[in-house]
């Protein structure tokens, strides 16, 4: 006897989609639930048991200077990286888009140069940056010395270090944003510029404000969301160059969750940090959804 066709088809679907779905539950949703639960306990890796302590981890996170520092540093980092890398990415994209018409080879070469940091191994590049900014053998330090400026301690000044890391973050994401903006620019129909110049919008700046910028609306939103999520995730440069130091001056959320969880084994507290990190990302997504709803007329 053949099995009922509907049951057979359902079994086939289960065979195809089941492993992926199971892996998804096991490796994403179950862990998220566990992290959420752990964040309410004082669990430590290796400890035989744990206590429910309610929101104590969160209270500590927001009251303790080191916890607050991780959060504010992450926000400062994002506040620098998001606008700077977007503005630079857009500027480079407009420049390359402009010269692509009459100097395509140069445009392509420059595009590759700007994109290179995206492809490169960030840990290795972080070391290169550290050497570039090295107080005694760094090229930047040397150059500043050469023109008679005493170089600041980019990586050991407590006030400066997070901005230095943010600058590296900008360096790393300009190329990525450039590529996304280039795609957005390529999608703007040329006749809109013709129409604008007929209407008297002739200068480069007016062209930008009347056509380019409004037409890039959806791209800009997309780029902003990606840059923001990547910025909130900053880890490699911190782990490689400063390890959160000096003091906790360059601590960030993800580095703090790594340190608290996997160096000090405070799983409960690290889970609270994780939840705050996830919360930040969800806020970004929510903002995006809100903005898309408001901006449907671009589609």
């Amino acid at each position: 006897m053949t099995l009922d066709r509907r049951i057979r088809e359902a079994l086939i679907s289960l065979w195809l989609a089941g492993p992926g779905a199971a892996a998804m539950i096991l490796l994403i949703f179950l862990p998220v639930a566990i992290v959420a639960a752990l964040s309410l306990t004082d669990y430590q890796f290796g400890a035989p048991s744990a206590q429910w302590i309610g929101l104590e981890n969160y209270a500590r996170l927001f009251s303790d200077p080191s916890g607050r520092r991780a959060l504010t540093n992450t926000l400062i980092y994002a506040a620098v990286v998001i606008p700077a890398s977007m503005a630079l990415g857009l500027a480079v994209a407009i420049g390359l888009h402009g010269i692509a018409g009459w100097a395509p080879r140069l445009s392509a070469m420059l595009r590759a140069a700007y994109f290179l940091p995206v492809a490169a191994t960030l840990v290795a590049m972080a070391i290169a940056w550290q050497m570039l900014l090295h107080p005694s053998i760094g090229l930047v330090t040397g150059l500043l010395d050469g023109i008679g400026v005493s170089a600041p301690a980019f990586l050991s000044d407590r006030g400066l270090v997070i901005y230095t890391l943010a600058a590296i973050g900008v360096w790393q994401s300009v190329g990525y944003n450039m590529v996304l903006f280039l795609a957005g620019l390529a999608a703007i129909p040329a006749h809109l510029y013709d129409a604008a110049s007929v209407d008297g919008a002739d200068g480069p700046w007016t062209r930008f404000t009347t056509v380019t910028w409004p037409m890039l609306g959806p791209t800009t939103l997309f780029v902003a969301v990606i840059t923001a999520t990547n910025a909130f995730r900053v880890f490699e440069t911190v782990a490689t160059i400063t390890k959160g130091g000096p003091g906790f001056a360059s601590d960030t959320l993800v580095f703090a969750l790594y340190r608290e969880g996997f160096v000090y084994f405070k799983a409960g507290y690290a889970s609270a940090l994780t939840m705050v990190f996830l919360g930040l990302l969800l806020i970004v997504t929510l903002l995006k959804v809100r903005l898309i709803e408001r901006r449907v007329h671009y589609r």
Partner: protein
Amino acid sequence: MLTARNITRRFGQTEVLHDITLDIPDGTFTSLLGPSGCGKSTFLRILAGLDMPSSGRVLMDGRDVSDLRPAERNVAMVFQAYALYPHLTVAENIALPLAMREMSAWQRVPLVSRILPATRETRRSHHDRVAAIAEMLGIGDLLDRKPAALSGGQQQRVAVGRALVRDPSVFLLDEPLSNLDAALRVQMRAELAALHARTGTSFVHVTHDQTEAMSMSDRVAVMLAGRIAQLDTPRALYARPATRDVAAFIGTHSINLVDLPVESGGLGGAFAEFRPKGAEMPSRVTLGLRPEHLTPDPAGAIEGRLDQVEYLGGEALLHLRLPDGTALRSLAPGEVELPPPGESLRLTVASAHIHIFDSETGARCAATLEQVAA
């Protein structure tokens, strides 16, 4: 014999097939003819086993195959867009069903097949069969090409070859000609009919093109709004449409439909010369007159005013208006002498060519007409 019994198919709330029952005797060429959206493709997919009916059964030679997948039913199908595998060569496209049927999974592993003698044997026989079929379809020199490098007609032949190669129990054709240009379509029509004659396998052919359906099939099932409105030979379909809707659907020039009351024993208006005979008539009828049966004749029984003439070469399509305002189309030989538009013109029609339908139900009436002198 392939049998569909009480097939109903619902998508959500909408029922697209209403309780369809159809027998397809062995060796016949059956067309499912209908306008787009009538459910004919859905019905074909149910016959194939690609879709499952909401209720009803599909039987092959009396065996219930409703729970079998398409391959287990051993059906072959040619798709409208051919659905050739773009990454395989023509030979591989045609051979794939053979490999799937006659080789086990591990025999299909490329390396193994080269080592095992038995597998090599099977491969060789497949190769020969593919070559023979390709030769028969005139694509023998294209075996190493990829589908993208072929013309529409060649792709079509590959699709037919793929269907033909494994001796299926029934051939299902889903609008196989509609992507071809007109000349090629006429040629492929003849080739498919010849193929049917040679293989002796049942063909079920879905189309919205009545010329295709009429010219190729033994039987045509006209499908309208999810029902089979009439199943008949092409000739009967044209000569004796079972309903007003079928009459309206069949015919190169769309049929004239004239709504009339039946007065005491006779018809009114321009058709006063015709009297019903035989069976009872309903109180209101719709007469169906094909333009090609309604020709100018000075002695004709019907008089109208000529509005417009469409000259088509061998024939001319005349647009007339009866005194009561009814519009009529008549097909006249191209060389006929016509009065200028605006003048009156008489038309004749043989009473045997007038179809009578019940205005209310649309069903054909058993009664016939006879012409009496006014």
